[in-house]
């Protein structure tokens, strides 16, 4: 397939932020991929959580990722989760350069091009007033 993968259209089920994840979604709205770092031990926590996943401290700060990383694993989905999704779409786990994983979809790329180790960068798509969704696309 030579067509470039596109973001999903409005109408897909959207995230419902929690008290401790709201800063992450606020970041997406202004084009920032935010993650938590522990003030006590320095470890990164992702997905957003109420406590550090290394030392369980609640003394967490938000930092902004470069959004650069590489594909850790991937799958091209041909049977949609629900009819709200357009296939094919590619789910990826990306290892960000800061050292955390994020699960998202890959766009602006052909289905055949995706591979483990592929360099990618974050990009943001507004899907509702409340939710702007991070995607990844090829870095160059």
């Amino acid at each position, binding site marked *: 397939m030579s067509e470039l993968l596109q973001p999903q259209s409005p109408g*897909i089920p959207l995230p*419902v932020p929690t008290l401790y994840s709201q800063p992450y979604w606020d970041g997406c709205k202004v084009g920032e991929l935010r993650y938590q770092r522990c003030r006590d031990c320095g470890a990164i926590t992702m997905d957003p959580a109420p406590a550090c996943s290394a030392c369980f401290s609640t003394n967490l700060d938000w930092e902004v990722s470069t959004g650069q990383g590489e594909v850790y694993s991937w799958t*091209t*989905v*041909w049977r949609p*989760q*629900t009819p709200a999704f357009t296939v094919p779409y590619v789910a990826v786990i990306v290892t960000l350069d800061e050292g955390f994983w994020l699960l998202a979809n890959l766009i602006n790329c052909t289905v055949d091009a995706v591979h483990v180790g592929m360099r990618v960068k974050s990009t943001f798509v507004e899907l509702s007033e409340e939710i702007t969704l991070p995607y990844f696309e090829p870095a160059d």
Partner: protein
Amino acid sequence: MAKHPFHDVAIVGIANSEQARILEGHDSTTITFQAVHRVLADTGLSPSDIDGVAAGPFSGPLTYYMRNGPSWRHYMAPSIPTILDAASAIATGQCHTVLVAHGSAGVYTERASTAPWTRPAHEFVVAYGMFTAAEFALIAQRHMHMHGTTPEQLATVAATVRNNGHVHPDAVYYGRGPFTPDDILASRMVADPFHLLDCAMTSEGACALILTTRERAQDLPTKPVYILGGACDSFGPSYQHPPAWDLAGPDGQNNGYTGRWAAQKSFAMAELGPTDVDVCEFYDPFSFEIIRQFEAYGFCEEGEGGEFIMDGRIGPGGQYPVTTDGGTMSFSHGGAAVQQLQRVIRGVEQLRGTCVTSQVPDAKVAMCSNGGAGALFTDVMLLGTETP
């Protein structure tokens, strides 16, 4: 005295209800009651002999309608952890005879979508179209990248398991084969590397087991099957966070090999090792999971699972026959929990020697499992005809 408290507990009753893609005229409650009637008939017990019920949401109703209260009860949708809890309750004297049951019918009706239990609406996956097949595909792709595991090896697993169901008269997909690996590879792609026939199906059904003390088991008509060992590994909630192979705690034990530590504990309890296992009733949500489990449990080295399952090793008459009723790919997949209990039911059937199809001759030790790395957990049980 037993070398481990589990060894004082036996599984004395097993039953499956009818299984089908759609069970007309049933809901989850009525099909569960059918399985309960069948398991009581299997053991010759009556409701008044039961003093513990572990049947998820049906624990309360069953206790009320059987009038067997006061009774020990357990409310989690039952799978291997529930059986181990029931065995623990018996071994510690909280009760002596536990009914474990679950059923599902009429739950999955929106067929344009994937099954509802496969797609929790968590904020970090919901908008990315994730469901079970995609979660497990992310695990399989990582292994293929690291070790060169091939689609043909995955397809060999799927063909083997599906052919076990093809010959089993009670399987939902009875007579729907036989399959070659090429047939699997020719089916449509669902989530790369999984073709349709690499994946579990969905169906409806119920099943039930009865556990009791070793002592009481001697007075019952069925051949007792003993719990030699069992344990559970979890790395977090299923389908909410990235299913990364390398997700690990500080000691480096990783999600890719979830089930390894449960298996090591189980083998230690049983005073056995992988070579003592006669039949592998492994959970088969996706073909790759069988390959992963042979590595995780120590049957072969890391990265060698793809080669290990080739050349008939896991088929009928092979060294380690797997999932001998057809599993979730062909026997049945009645929801979130029923099909997990069915791995243990098939293990008991093998050790009783009563399998109508794919009986492993003189089987003495069965290894049963639930879960998978795509779901961030794996539970393990070892069953035996004798205890150490």
